[in-house]
């Protein structure tokens, strides 16, 4: 079964600095999607970034980028130039291409941003 592990329950970063959130996953599949979602206090989950496993190039969305290491089953999120609005819970998620539309989420990392 697929599992997603986020080993950092909580992290803090100074405004304007860079922070990296870790995520590892376990799968025997070769094709899948990986996601980072953000859940601010408003509770609404927002997609931050998506990575397709068959693509070697790491996904980037403005200040957000990932380090995807397929062999190591690692998918970390780097937030550059952190802003106060980045403070939220961040969830790493895995979606199988074979068990269609079944998502697996990690337990989340709470990110605090200090002014």
């Amino acid at each position: 079964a697929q599992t997603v592990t986020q080993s950092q329950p909580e992290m803090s970063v100074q405004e304007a600095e860079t922070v990296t959130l870790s995520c590892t996953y376990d799968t025997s599949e070769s094709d899948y999607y990986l996601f980072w979602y953000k859940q601010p206090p408003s509770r609404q989950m927002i997609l931050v970034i998506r990575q397709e496993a068959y693509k070697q190039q790491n996904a980037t969305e403005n200040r957000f980028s990932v380090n995807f290491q397929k062999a190591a089953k690692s998918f970390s999120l780097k937030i550059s130039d952190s802003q106060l609005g980045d403070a939220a819970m961040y969830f790493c998620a895995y979606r199988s291409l074979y068990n269609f539309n079944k998502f697996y989420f990690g337990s989340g990392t709470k990110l605090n941003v200090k002014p």
Partner: protein
Amino acid sequence: EAGVTQSPTHLIKTRGQQATLRCSPISGHTSVYWYQQALGLGLQFLLWYDEGEERNRGNFPPRFSGRQFPNYSSELNVNALELEDSALYLCASSLESDGDIQYFGAGTRLSVL
């Protein structure tokens, strides 16, 4: 364009009662997903509906059920409520053709007393 909407925002029930949660997907989305987010835990997949049919189900007892209506909105029903059912219930929708990206609502906070 309206996002995924869920109602009610907060629901308080007592043990043994039934709870009904509602979700309206983004216009044009045919798939609806339900997740349970208990305190301190990640999201646990509950149910997936598409075109009015239940397509997949997570590891939850049968007292968790739901349905999808012809307009693609959905209900989640939880019967015989237990204290451990207290959680945030999130609904998400996706286009069938682009099912890898799910768009979430703000959730319903269910408190079982």
